[in-house]
């Protein structure tokens, strides 16, 4: 069973994403900020990460930088309300697998996760 890590400081958003994914068989774990997410990865690495950008205690951009510098090869899907083209480019340059905007759309989110998991198998 694929393990997904949702990193977002909003419990409403984490609840929202879990609700969207309830019919899938992913094993979902959560972290409320980038620091807790890095701790989680060190203990039991997930197969895919869904990452918010604007968070206290290591924001998403810092998390991406850390993942890149530590060669963490887990696909990271950004899920952010920030719709600026410049923000998306910065995330993709830092190695994000894809960039989705909030609110999450079911089909798009599941398709992107499946693509990310396939890329991780290669």
């Amino acid at each position, binding site marked *: 069973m694929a393990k997904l890590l949702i990193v977002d400081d*909003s419990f409403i958003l984490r609840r929202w994403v879990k609700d969207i994914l309830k019919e899938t068989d992913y094993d979902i774990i959560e972290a409320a900020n980038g620091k807790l997410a890095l701790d989680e990865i060190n203990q039991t690495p997930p197969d895919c990460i869904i990452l918010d950008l604007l968070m206290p205690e290591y924001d998403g951009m810092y998390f991406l930088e850390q993942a890149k510098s530590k060669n963490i090869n887990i696909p990271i899907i950004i899920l952010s309300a920030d719709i600026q083209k*410049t923000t998306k480019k910065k995330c993709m340059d830092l190695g994000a697998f894809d960039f989705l905007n909030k609110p999450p759309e079911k089909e798009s989110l599941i398709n992107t996760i499946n693509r990310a998991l396939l890329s991780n198998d290669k």
Partner: protein
Amino acid sequence: MINNMDLTQKQYDTLKEIINIGVGKSAATLNEMLQSHIDLSVPKIAVQSIDECTDLLLNTNSIDKSQLSAVKMNFHGSLNGCAELIFPQDSASHLVSSLIGEIPTNDEVVDLKAGTVSEVGNIILNGVMGSITNLINGHVEYTPLEYFEGDHKNILRIEITDKNTVIIFADTKFIVKDLNITGNIILMYSVDTFKKLEIIIDRMNL
């Protein structure tokens, strides 16, 4: 004194259109989230000094004078200022039940209301600001959202002490009739000089 007359009609119209596009994008997102039609008012836009803007905020009839729930997001970069999304408390409760699909119990109502209004505010305010910065080929960095509850005097506080600061103020009211929800999107840009504003608006007209 600085007022709207310092903008040419073309600049004023362009500014209004930029804000209209941003608010429209956010209304479309809210429409998808709530699956209900959103009525938008024409944005009220003013370019004023800090004192005039404070008076305008406190005396506007557009904003409910009862207890309010609000989220505020500061930004800096190509544009500096803040954006606020404001709901009367009743509307905030209706928003929670519409999105979460349940009526919260007394024990969880505070957390659920704060969490839901914050996340909706995150999406709506980013939608407005992101559309605007994309249009002007700019970029802004955001500070984490702040959630407030209180009356309009507390919530509509302007935290700028420099009396020479010029504010571009925009207020759009939205109504979701089906769900009995109303709210306001307020944008306040501090523009260091009118020169910067003119450059941004002229860039739009290229």
